[in-house]
C-alpha cells in the first residue's frame, strides 16, 4: 500500500530551498566524512520520497522524537542527529539513498514509504549491514527474505504497518465485527483497484468471511484499472448489485482514492464508502477533495485516540512542534511508526548497553529487538513495546500461523511460512485502526475500545 500524497510549500520553505540549493551546490557530497566516534552525535538516516506528504510527516516525527530524546540526555549519553536522503519512489534510487546515508555516517536507517523502494533496497541491505527499521512499505517479500537468508537480512525490522497479507485479516475483522454486527449490514460490494496487492484481498474476502461464520455477502467484486477517469458506470454497477440489500461499498485502493471518492460524493452515490483508502490517510484529505471526504472510512495505523497512553501526547506534540514543517499538523500513519521506531531503538540499545555502531553491537541490538513480542510459555507474545501505534512486538523466526495457511498457499508459499521481524498484528498489538472523516477531522470508529465517534452516514443519506 503505497501512495504519493499531499504537499504544500509556503514562500518561506521555498526560500529555504533556494538557500539550501545554493549551499548544497557549493559543497561536494563526496567530501562529507563519516561520523567520527566519540561524543559526536549518533546519526540516524531516513530514506523516504521527500517530495511527498508522507516523507515530510515521517521526517517531522523523527525530528520530534530526536529532539525529545536529546533533551533527556540522548541514548546511552550520546545525542542523536537525523540525516535524510531522497528515495524518489524508485527501485534504483532507494539503494543509493541507503548508501548515501551510510556514507554520511548513519548507523541506523529508517524509512521507505513505497514497496517499490523497499524491494529495490533488498539488493543492498546485506551490504550496508546497518539496522534498518521499516516504517511505511508493507510488502511481505521483505520479511520473507529475512526468513530465507537470516544472516544477510536480519538487519531489517518492520516497525509498521502490518504486512499486506495481514491487511486482509484486519479487513475481515472490521467487516464482521463492525459492518455486520455493529451496523447490521448484510452485503458489500468490494471495489478494488487492479493492482497486485489487492489480489489476495478480492480473492480471499468471500472465503474468509465464510470461514469467520459471517452472513455478510459479497454482492459484487469490481476491479478497475488504476487510470480510470470516470467512475460513474462502476458506481452504478455497485448500486445495482446492492438493490434490496443493506450495506455499502468496501474500497481497496492505494494509488487511486481521491478521484473515486470525489466522484462518489459529487454523484451522491446512495452507498457509504468504507474500506482501505490510502489517500484518506493523508491529513489533508478533506481539503484535497473539497469536502468530499465526509463520512469516508479507511484503515490506518495511527490516529488521535487512546491507542496507548503515548498516542495522544504524541499527536499533540506533533501539532505543536514548529521546528520543522509547521504546516504539517496531522501525523500520517508512517509518522506514528517512525516516531515509534526511534524510541524502539532507544529501548533496545539501552537493554543491550551499546549503540549499534559496528556489526557486533548491531547484532546485540538486533537480539534485544527480537525479544520484543517473543512468545511466552502460554504461546502469548510477551515483553511488548508501548509505542504510539500500539503495543509492538515482532514475529519470530520459524513461527508459523502469522498468516492463515490457505492465504499463504494461494500465494505460492508453504503453509508454515514465517515472517520474522514483521510487526505483530492482533487486538492490543498493532491492530488496524479504522477512521472516518467527520467534519474535516479523522475520527476513530473501530475497534470499539478506541472509538472517538460513532459511525455516520454520508450527508445525502442522513
Amino acid at each position, binding site marked *: 500500500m503505497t501512495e504519493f500524497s499531499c504537499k504544500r510549500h509556503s514562500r518561506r520553505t521555498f526560500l529555504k530551498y533556494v538557500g539550501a540549493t545554493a549551499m548544497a551546490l557549493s559543497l561536494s557530497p563526496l567530501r562529507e566524512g563519516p561520523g567520527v566516534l566519540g561524543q559526536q552525535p549518533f546519526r540516524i538516516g531516513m530514506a523516504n520520497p521527500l517530495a511527498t506528504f508522507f516523507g515530510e510527516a515521517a521526517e517531522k516525527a523523527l525530528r520530534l522524537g530526536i529532539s525529545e530524546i536529546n533533551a533527556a540526555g540522548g541514548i546511552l549519553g550520546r545525542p542523536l542527529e537525523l540525516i535524510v536522503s531522497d528515495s524518489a519512489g524508485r527501485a534504483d534510487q532507494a539503494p543509493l539513498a541507503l548508501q548515501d546515508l551510510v556514507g554520511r555516517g548513519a548507523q541506523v536507517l529508517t524509512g521507505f514509504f513505497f514497496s517499490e523502494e523497499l524491494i529495490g533496497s533488498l539488493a543492498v541491505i546485506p551490504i550496508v549491514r546497518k539496522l534498518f527499521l521499516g516504517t511505511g512499505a508493507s510488502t511481505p517479500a521483505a520479511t520473507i527474505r529475512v526468513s530465507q537468508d537470516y544472516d544477510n537480512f536480519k538487519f531489517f525490522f518492520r516497525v509498521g504497518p502490518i504486512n499486506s497479507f495481514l491487511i486482509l485479516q484486519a479487513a475481515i475483522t472490521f467487516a464482521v465485527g463492525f459492518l455486520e454486527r455493529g451496523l447490521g449490514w448484510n452485503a458489500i460490494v468490494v471495489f478494488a483497484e487492479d493492482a497486485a496487492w489487492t489480489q489476495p484481498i478480492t480473492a480471499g474476502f468471500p472465503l474468509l468471511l465464510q470461514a469467520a461464520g459471517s452472513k455478510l455477502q459479497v454482492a459484487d467484486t469490481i476491479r478497475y484499472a488504476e487510470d480510470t477517469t470516470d467512475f460513474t458506470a462502476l458506481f452504478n454497477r455497485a448500486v445495482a448489485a446492492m438493490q434490496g440489500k443493506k450495506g455499502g461499498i468496501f474500497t481497496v485502493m492505494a494509488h487511486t482514492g481521491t478521484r473515486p471518492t470525489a466522484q462518489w460524493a*459529487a454523484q451522491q452515490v446512495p452507498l457509504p464508502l468504507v474500506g482501505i483508502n490510502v489517500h484518506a490517510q493523508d491529513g489533508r484529505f478533506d481539503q484535497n477533495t473539497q469536502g468530499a471526504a465526509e463520512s469516508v472510512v479507511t484503515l490506518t495505523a495511527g490516529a488521535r485516540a487512546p491507542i496507548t497512553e503515548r498516542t495522544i501526547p504524541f499527536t499533540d506534540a506533533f501539532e505543536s512542534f514548529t521546528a520543522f514543517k509547521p504546516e504539517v499538523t496531522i501525523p500520517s500513519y508512517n509518522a506514528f511508526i517512525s516516531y515509534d521506531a526511534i524510541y524502539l531503538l532507544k529501548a533496545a540499545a539501552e537493554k543491550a548497553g551499546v549503540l549499534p555502531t559496528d556489526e557486533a553491537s548491531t547484532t546485540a541490538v538486533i537480539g534485544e529487538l527480537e525479544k520484543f513480542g517473543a512468545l511466552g510459555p502460554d504461546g502469548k507474545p510477551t515483553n511488548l513495546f508501548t509505542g504510539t501505534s500500539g503495543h509492538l512486538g515482532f514475529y519470530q523466526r520459524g513461527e508459523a500461523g502469522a498468516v492463515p495457511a490457505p492465504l499463504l498457499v494461494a500465494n505460492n508459499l508453504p503453509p508454515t511460512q514465517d515472517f520474522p521481524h514483521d510487526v505483530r498484528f492482533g487486538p492490543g498489538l498493532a491492530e488496524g485502526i479504522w477512521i472516518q472523516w467527520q467534519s474535516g477531522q479523522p475520527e476513530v470508529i473501530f475497534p470499539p475500545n478506541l472509538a472517538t465517534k460513532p459511525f455516520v452516514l454520508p450527508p445525502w443519506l442522513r
Partner: protein
Amino acid sequence: MGGIVEVLILGFLISSLYALTALGFTMIFGVAGVLNLAHGAFAMVGAYLAIWAMSAWGWGLPAAAAFAVLGMGVLAPLFYLVFVRPVEDRPIIVFLATLLLAVILEQSIALTFSFNSRILPPLWEGSFTLLGTRISYNRVAASAIVLLILLGLWLFVRRARLGKAILALSMERRGAALVGIPARQIILGVWGISGALAAIAGLFIGSFFGISPLEERLLLVIAFSTVVLGGLGSIPGSLWAAFIIGYSETIIQQFAPEARGLASLAILMVVLMLRPQGLLGRAAA
C-alpha cells in the same frame, strides 16, 4: 437497454473532453509543424492555476477558471518564445525541449501541490435519472459547454479572418506567406489559443474526474493518439478520433473495467497498422 443509454451518455463527455484536449495539439502541429509534447502539461497546469487562485486568493470558481484560461493563454506563447523559437529549425531539439518542459512543469506542480489528485468543485450540483441511469447536472452542463466551444471554434476557423489565416497556414505554409499572412504572429496566437483550450480541458477534467500532476502524461498520450489517429493536422479527423477513443474506452469499461487502458491502446495500434496516415490524414506525412 440501460447499459446502452449509460454508455452513450458517459462516453459523450469524455469524448468531447478528449476532442478539446486534442484540438490545441493539432492546431500547433498544423500551423507551426511542432509536436508540442508539453500540451498535456498545459492542461494540467491550467487546472492547477484555478486551484491556486481559489485557495490562495479565495476566488470563486468562475473567476478562477477565467484566470486559468487567460493564464495559460499567456503562458503558452511565452513558453514558445523561450523554449521553442530559439531551436525551431531543429525538430528533434524542439521535440525534446517540449518534453523536458512537460516534466519540469509536472515536477514543479507536484512540489507545490503534491502528487495527489485534486478536485475542482462542480459547476452545478445534484443529479437526475434518465432511463435508469443517474446523470449529474454537472455532466450535462459540461457537455453543453464543451460542445459550444467546439462549435465556436469551428465557426472561428471557417468565418473569422484570423481563423481562416490559421487554416491557410496549416494547409500550405509557403502559399500563406505569399498571400501576406504574417506567419510569426499567427503562430504566437495559435500557441495562445492552444494553451487556453488546454486549460479549459484541464478545468473540466479537474472538476469532473480530479487532476494530479502525473495526469499530464495521460493527457498527452490521449492528445497524441487522438491527433495521429485522426490524421495529423486534420481538425475533423481529430474530432472523429476523439469520439472513437472515448467511446471505445467507455464500452470496454462497461464489460472489463480492469482492462480499460489496455484495450484502447490495442485499438489504436490496429488502426495505425491498417491506416498508417490516420483516419482523415493525407497519405505520407
